[in-house]
């Protein structure tokens, strides 16, 4: 249908992901929202999707979608797209979402727009807004081929909204072809972390190249702990091997939107700004007064982070105790 918008719903931590619900909110606003949910999911998953605006849910609970990467899901989604021809299909900018869109685009010989921050639908054609080159430019793009348009949407682009629809589930057959079982998910390993997750934290303390090493990140952890926040990093710190990729904030990492964002020893490359510039308050500590990050800061200290941060931690502890 001309205004049907599909959302590829994902499960993480036994729940429908927030990004899935965010996309449903936008899809409902622009047209008729429907969802595709593949793989094992909790009992109330379909109901949740309906509560957030999905007027129909294409569903297959087969474990093949969990046990084998990309190919079974791509086969099923491609089949559904060819049969129902939705105007747009939205995928989260997640590991699974990006892989799936890449495969579908080649399979269906259609275009795809990634890193979408917003979009509109006019007479069946889609106009997507993309923050480009980090945050320094904003582009709009369209897809000029016939058929379903694939968009990969950045997390936190929209607010999830309750929008009750009657539960309508259409069961679809599982992808059965043996040839699709090629990339085997053997084991999921959880790496324990303490404190709030980066995405959920109200306060994020991030370090960059200026930290000069892995050990110095402990200092940021201390600061985050005093404030009940989480520690993030710029790509420079991740590429240097000081902290894992899971901590990376920016266009190629996570997008965060905390109340307070500390940029410590981060110059503010466009690629980083794109992942944090919508934070409510940005506080910067950097020795270079010319660093672009100061342009985005609400409050900044030009100084030696190795002096300023310990003093701040000390001060916070003192004021807390008082």
């Amino acid at each position, binding site marked *: 249908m001309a205004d049907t918008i599909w959302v590829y719903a994902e499960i993480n931590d036994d729940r429908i992901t927030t990004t899935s619900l965010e996309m449903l909110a936008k899809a409902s606003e622009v047209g008729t929202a429907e969802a595709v949910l593949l793989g094992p999911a909790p009992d109330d998953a379909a109901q949740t999707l309906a509560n957030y605006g999905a007027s129909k849910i294409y569903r297959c609970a087969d474990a093949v979608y969990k046990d084998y990467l990309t190919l079974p899901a791509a086969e099923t989604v491609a089949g559904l797209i060819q049969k129902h021809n939705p105007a747009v299909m939205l995928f989260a900018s997640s590991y699974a979402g990006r892989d799936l869109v*890449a495969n579908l*685009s080649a399979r269906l010989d259609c*275009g795809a727009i990634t890193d979408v921050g917003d979009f509109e639908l006019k007479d069946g054609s889609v106009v997507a807004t993309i923050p480009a080159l980090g945050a320094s430019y*904003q582009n709009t793009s369209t897809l000029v081929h016939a058929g379903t348009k694939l968009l990969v949407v950045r997390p936190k682009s929209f607010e999830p909204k309750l929008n009750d629809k009657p539960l309508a589930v259409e069961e679809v057959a599982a992808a059965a072809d043996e040839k699709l079982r090629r990339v085997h998910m053997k084991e999921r390993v959880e790496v324990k972390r303490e404190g709030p997750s980066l995405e959920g934290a109200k306060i994020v303390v991030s370090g960059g190249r200026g930290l000069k090493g892995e050990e110095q990140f402990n200092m940021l952890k201390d600061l985050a702990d005093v404030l009940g926040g989480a520690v993030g990093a710029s790509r420079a710190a991740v590429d240097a091997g000081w902290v894992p*990729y899971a901590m990376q904030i920016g266009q190629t990492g996570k997008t965060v939107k905390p109340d307070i964002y500390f940029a410590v020893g981060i110059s503010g490359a466009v690629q980083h700004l794109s992942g944090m510039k919508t934070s409510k308050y940005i506080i910067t500590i950097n020795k270079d007064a010319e660093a672009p990050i100061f*342009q985005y800061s609400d409050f900044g200290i030009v100084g030696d982070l190795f002096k300023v941060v310990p003093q*701040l931690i000390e001060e916070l502890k003192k*004021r807390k105790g008082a």
Partner: protein
Amino acid sequence: MNVVVCGKVIPASTVIIEIDSSSKRMQRKGVPHELDPAAASAVEEGLRLTEKHGGAVVLVTMGTSDATIGIRNALAMGVTSAVHILDDAVAGSDTLGTAKLLAAAIKKLEYDLVICATESSDSYSGIVHGQIAQLLGLPALTFAKEVAVEGGKITIKRQSETGFDLVESSLPALVACSSGINEPRYPQLKGIMAAKKKEIKVYTAADLGLSPDQVGEKGAREKVLSIGRPPKRQAGKAVVDEGEGGKQIADFLAEIKVI
């Protein structure tokens, strides 16, 4: 084991890239270029695997003549030979057009494994490798932070939202490395000298059996409609630390009622 590394040569990280307002493309021409650090990691991974298991590494890239410096760098690192898709007709290709060209060039080679970066450091679309895999009929193992090959099988540690997944497939396959998977080696003098004698094969789109309406601006499904600068955020106060910086931040936090 023969490896194909697919990687990009991009404007050096020191260059501030401008956008050409008429073509709406990045102005890549005439600025200093370098092998994309993400591609250098893919090259490094390929070299490490062939050092262990034997075989050759071939770099496949697409770009203008400015790409040569990056290709030489990869050859100096130890790559055996290179393939350069060089053709004005491919300018303005979208992700799928790029993937079709790269896949067609890879098809001409003998390989057990194709290694890509998860995304380039200048355009970050992050889907070209997945498109290449599908076009070549290869299983794609993506977001790899560790790669091991053993007895015709490849196993990776794949990043996940909560840790990592162990993912396995049989060869031939395509693997996409995440940033920071390794520390790429610096070319040594011996490698730099040897690189001068190594072969760089040049192909046009037509050489690869692709017509002009399948690639480049003409074949692109994605059309850029507009470019612009989003409004700048009002810069706030910045003070030079005179020994009270930490306390001043605490004062600011109190002011906005965080503490």
